[in-house]
């Protein structure tokens, strides 16, 4: 019981600190922060699935869906960040609900790859659609906040504050879900669906619920990313490699904690930024190399690192 409370307190503290830091950090750091929040949200969704032993190699589907939903709304003249985010999140959740009826029947690698296949279909559709700028994508008007439209550096500061606040709500929500009975079912389902079924609950329904949650989170991440970048395009929103990055962040973070996901997302951003800055010709080599190193030497992800340190301290 106490354990859970500590997580909540930790989250609240982190929230307060970051909110304060928002006004001190240089803009490029804040921008990395924004992307961390966006990708972290998707990874959090994958974490929820992973707790039942399922992983999706296609969540760029919901990420891109959310991003494009937000972008299309700004095209239609709706620029309120809150409306954009909620709409993107819900529409992605709805899509997940529909596909879930099919996907909930699959497990293990088949589940992962069927997701990937669906994300490719969205990618193909986007590239094909000239109205949506095909591979160029199109611009996203900078968001307003209940009528207030920031200028200059305030653009990112406000967006970060906004995203951070919603992220806090989302993370707490997911945390509460995970400690709930429904969330607790995850391990049971991972271990023995037959028993769960014979205790009177549908394992498939539990999985379906998780899938929808992961879809909602990915849509949320997509909206944040779209608003941060100011442009949506298939290659960086819906391509299969994007899904791969999300899985990487999830594995990098480990299933240990909801907070770890965001640390993982941040590490990912930093690796990429520095690889790109110091090795412009071989940045993929560095990126891939670090992925590989982490997979091989940190099987439990960063969280295990934290625990190891704790043990070391004694």
């Amino acid at each position, binding site marked *: 019981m106490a354990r859970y409370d500590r997580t909540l307190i930790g989250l609240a503290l982190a929230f307060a600190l970051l909110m304060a830091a928002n006004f001190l950090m240089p803009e*490029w*750091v804040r921008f990395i922060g924004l992307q961390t929040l966006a990708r972290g949200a998707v990874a959090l969704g994958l974490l929820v699935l992973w707790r039942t032993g399922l992983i999706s190699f296609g969540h760029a589907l919901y990420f891109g869906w959310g991003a494009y939903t937000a972008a299309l709304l700004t095209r239609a003249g709706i620029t309120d960040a809150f409306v954009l985010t909620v709409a993107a999140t819900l529409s992605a959740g709805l899509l997940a609900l529909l596909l879930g009826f099919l996907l909930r029947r699959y497990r293990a690698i088949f589940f992962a790859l069927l997701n990937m296949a669906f994300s490719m279909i969205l990618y193909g559709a986007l*590239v094909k659609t*000239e109205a949506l*700028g095909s*591979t160029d994508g199109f611009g996203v008007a900078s968001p307003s906040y209940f009528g207030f439209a920031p200028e200059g550096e305030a*653009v990112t500061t406000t967006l970060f504050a906004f995203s951070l606040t919603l992220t806090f709500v989302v993370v707490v929500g997911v945390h509460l879900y995970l400690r709930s009975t429904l969330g607790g079912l995850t391990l049971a389902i991972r271990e023995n669906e037959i028993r769960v079924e014979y205790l009177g609950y549908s394992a498939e329904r539990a999985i379906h619920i998780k899938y929808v949650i992961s879809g909602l989170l990915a849509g949320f991440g997509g909206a944040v990313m779209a608003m941060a970048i*100011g442009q949506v*395009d298939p290659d960086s929103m819906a391509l299969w490699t994007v899904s791969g990055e999300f899985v990487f962040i999830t594995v990098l973070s480990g299933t240990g904690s909801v907070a770890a996901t965001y640390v993982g997302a941040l590490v990912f951003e930093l690796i*990429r930024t520095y690889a790109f800055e110091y090795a412009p010709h071989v940045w993929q080599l560095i990126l891939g190399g670090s992925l590989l190193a982490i997979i091989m030497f940190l099987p439990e992800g960063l969280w295990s690192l934290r625990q190891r340190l704790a043990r070391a301290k004694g």
Partner: protein
Amino acid sequence: MTRSSFAAQLLVAGALALAGTGPAAAKEQVVLAVPTFLTGAGAPAFGVPARNGVEVVVQAINDGTLPAPYDSKGFAGVPVQLEVYDESGGNTKQVTEFRNKVQKQNVDLFVGFTSSGTCQAVTPVAEELKALTIFAVCGTQRVFEELDTDPKYVFRTMSHATSDQVAAALYVKAKFPGVKGYTGLNQNYAWGQDSWRDFDLAMQVIAPEAKASEKLQWPKIFAGQYGAEVSALLLSEEELVHTSFWGGDLEAFIFQASPRGLFEKKKVLFTVAGTAVYRLGKKMPQGVVLGSRGPYGIFAAEKDDPLNKWFRQAYVDRFGTNPTGPSYQYAQGVLAAKFGYDKAAAANGGQFPSTEQVIAAMEGQKIPSFTTTVNLALNKGHQAITDHAYGVVKWDAEAGEPKMVDVVSFAAECVNPPDGVNSVDWIKGGMKGAKC
């Protein structure tokens, strides 16, 4: 890595960023960032020739060995530090990189960008961050016509893609007056879609008697296999084939179409094949029409201008191959930047100018370049119009290299809309005010 060490990293990096944002006084060097494709499919066709072109020019600028009017050292006397970086990896990454370059690595200006999508993604950021950004290549006219209608920090030093297609249509009209029908083979992504749309529009105005095919080929970009497309083109009634293929797809298409006699059966019009013509050499099918997005690359081979002669020589000496379109286009962007800095410094009493002064010095100028004048005539003096040329490839046996014959050159004013007119509307409206 642990949280604390992240914090450390962030603080350090943050400190760096803050430290950089000092006054521009006593400038020791101008940091010139050049984004272009160093990896991926864009690298051979665009990225590497472009980088090479820039390296040649920047070195000469720092040594002060360029011919007039660029014979002074550096930008406004300050040596240029070149930062070439990879343009591949998608817009999200490019926008992030752009911000990092400006805020973390204190880049003074950008010259480059090949992908239309990336240009569109970067434009608002450049304006937001007040970073001087000179687009050297990217084609789309949307940048200034839709996205950034009141540009301040963003320039483009070559005509946008519409002029490629207008010139192409004019060439068809001039050289194949009798053409009854034309079809298209274009990659199914923004560049291909826009290229066909503009060409088709221009043809409807310039050669209304010719009819566009009902069955246009839209292969996926990087598909690499075009057997079926070649068959379909061989079977089509239209005698003219328009294609905006580039890079590996272009070369693959040529390898797959040549043995099947497509280039003998049909008149094929390549709008951007200039990039491949030297590399393919003898394998380049004879008698095809091609353009290089302007009087660049092979079209500049015989252009007898001191600046151009110097560039070709320096480039060949250094890399052993001839400069292609992108080499010229990127180098041209650098020239424009030097022009702006030098002029602004002069106006500033020899003092190193602020970015805003450079912009003021560039807006609306006619900047001399290798084979054309970069006339910043459109969109409040930020969008250049440049000359254009199309011709037919012929293998010159004794010279041992390809040549352009039947070249038709087009004045910038002939293939570009007048200021204030949206290019697509301009074509639809019958290209009023074109001075040919």
